[in-house]
């Protein structure tokens, strides 16, 4: 395909998606399951891509994503609850200590920065650790954050284990798409820069990368801090989406879900993570819902179906992907028009296989 054709195709695709979103935003579909899945998918896509930057592109196996999202969500909520509502939100703590509110966009930015600051602090000691020790240390860090936020002594700031609510949310479903889109574009630019190449070098071989003159600690730290920044932004968006936020929801199970999205999409593929997060959210929230309700085929009641069965089927599917389809949807490749074109010419390599067989027969 020519370069111009590709650009035109991309523009048409982007315009079609934008048109679809605007259409949904202005129709009664806005409160439908489709719209919920799209919004949550966009937010999860950002968080999954930020995790992919760390796990897939820098080779740092970190499990702290839920912790950074929690920091982002709480920072956003604490900074934006209108002063008038504070008395009712912080009803047990005399309206809390923060008695001002700032606009939405700066608050989202500060949410990201706050997560980044914590990442820099925790990164100093833990980034020296190797693979699974790093994983467990970051997982531990996320648990520490969750416990500290619910601590009674800081409750005038965080409202303890009570819910934070009444902060401004978005009115158009385009909002999470725009913020996520800008953030993901920034991550893509970063990965394509010389820093991104240094990250990949560290992923492939730490010792060789260091021998080539890459400052290992500086680059690991950079990847960790940037990834956490975007996780913080994602946390703020999630808070807006849910319109309330509570620390007990940000468990390690949330990190696991994001990790599974990254794995399904393909470790080291941005587009893979994006596609996978929409698939993941839609099948979890929507497509598999029917498994949770009793179904009849004619007079026959389908056995096993019931509340929670959806999640069992879902996790079995994930296990099958993890075990037998380790590359995920995209492997470490990115979406490209050439790839699509090739796929339709030769789906799953079937055509070339048939051709190859023919060739053998001819020779024989």
């Amino acid at each position, binding site marked *: 395909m020519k370069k111009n054709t590709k650009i035109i195709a991309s523009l048409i695709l982007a315009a079609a998606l934008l048109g679809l979103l605007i259409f949904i935003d202005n129709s009664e579909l806005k409160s439908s399951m489709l719209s919920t899945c799209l919004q949550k998918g966009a937010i999860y896509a950002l968080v999954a891509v930020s995790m992919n930057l760390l796990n897939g592109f820098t080779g740092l*196996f970190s499990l702290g994503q839920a912790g950074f999202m929690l920091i982002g969500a709480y920072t956003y909520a604490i900074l934006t609850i209108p002063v008038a509502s504070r008395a009712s939100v912080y009803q047990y703590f005399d309206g809390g200590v923060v008695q001002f509110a700032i606009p939405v966009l700066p608050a989202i930015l500060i949410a990201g920065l706050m997560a980044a600051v914590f990442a820099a602090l*925790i990164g100093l*000691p*833990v980034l*020296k*650790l*190797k*693979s*699974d*020790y790093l*994983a*467990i*240390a970051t*997982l*531990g*860090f996320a*648990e*520490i954050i969750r*416990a*500290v936020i*619910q*601590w*009674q*002594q800081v409750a005038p700031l965080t409202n303890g284990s009570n819910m934070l609510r009444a902060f401004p949310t978005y009115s158009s479903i385009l909002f999470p798409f725009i913020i996520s889109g800008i953030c993901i574009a920034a991550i893509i630019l970063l990965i394509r820069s010389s820093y991104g190449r240094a990250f990949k070098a560290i992923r492939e071989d730490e*010792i060789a990368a260091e021998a080539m003159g890459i400052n290992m600690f500086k680059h690991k730290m950079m990847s960790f801090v940037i990834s956490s920044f975007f996780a913080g932004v994602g946390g703020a968006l999630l808070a807006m989406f849910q319109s309330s936020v509570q620390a007990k929801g940000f*468990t*390690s*199970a949330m990190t*696991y*879900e994001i*990790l*599974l999205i990254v*794995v399904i999409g393909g470790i080291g593929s941005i587009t893979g993570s994006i596609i996978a997060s929409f698939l993941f959210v839609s099948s979890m929230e929507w497509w598999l819902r029917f498994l949770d309700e009793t179904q009849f085929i004619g007079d026959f009641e389908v056995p096993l179906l*019931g*509340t*929670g*069965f959806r*999640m*069992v089927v*879902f*996790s*079995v599917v*994930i*296990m099958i992907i*993890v*075990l*037998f389809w*380790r590359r995920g949807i995209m492997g470490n490749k990115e979406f490209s028009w050439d790839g699509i074109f090739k796929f339709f010419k030769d789906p799953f390599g079937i055509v070339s296989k048939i051709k190859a067989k023919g060739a053998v027969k001819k020779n024989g």
Partner: protein
Amino acid sequence: MSNYVQLLLSGIAVGSLYALIAIGYTMVYGILRLINFAHGDMFMMAGFFLIYIAAIPNMPIWGALLLTIALTVLLGFLIERCAYKPLRSAPRMSVMISAIGVSYLLQNFATYFTGGLAQAYPAIPLISNKIEIFGVSTKLITVITPILTIILVVALVLFIKYTKIGMAMRAVSKDFETSQLMGIKINRVISMTFIIGSFLAAIGSIMYFSYYEQVSPTIGAMPGLKAFVAAVFGGIGSIPGAVIGAYLIGICENIIKSFPAIADLSNAFTFVLLIIILILKPNGLFGEKLSEKV
């Protein structure tokens, strides 16, 4: 005074339970270099097994206990065969992701099967009885747990030291490839490790839930993580290390819980300890020094 005795007793009891779980982590890590994230959920599943088995009419309690242990061991064996064995030659991270997937599956399965609600644990006669020591009233289980744990740990250490399969385990944890070349049936050793780990998790689960009296689908995660911290603290791969780490965490946690101002932070303490130990002594108290080959 009696307050301190109470704290120490419950600390030791909880520490013993962490120790039983931690051994499962440390043995698997020693051999496969895998953090078995599903281990805490095995512990939870063992809790539910007993609840459902004990509810069968005319089931004697000892029969229920034996059946619970047998089922947990079977589950551990099957998890290894289905989820870890196919990935033997895959990168280590894939196996870890698979372990996370298993943990996710077990939690979701338990939520589906039980309706997601916490369920009461059946009282086991004798060990749930109340007794009084040093003027403190407590359940008999608080005293039995440490004794049983010590007996099991000693038995395990002897098993690893003096039996043929124990020797094979030590060989495999020293050098995976070479021991394979020496004719050790690696899959049998790994299965055995999972069987022992699940067995101890089942015993730990019976003790733990007799103590806390409730099982819910996500209850395994926290004790699992803490037991893992204990294993790291003691030096991963070392059984005595894991036991000492577990007692330390159990006792400290109970002391922290006794101060109302910082009681909420008892979970955080464990992970602060983890980060400190990883910085100061990444190999843990009794861990072997591993050198990276270029």
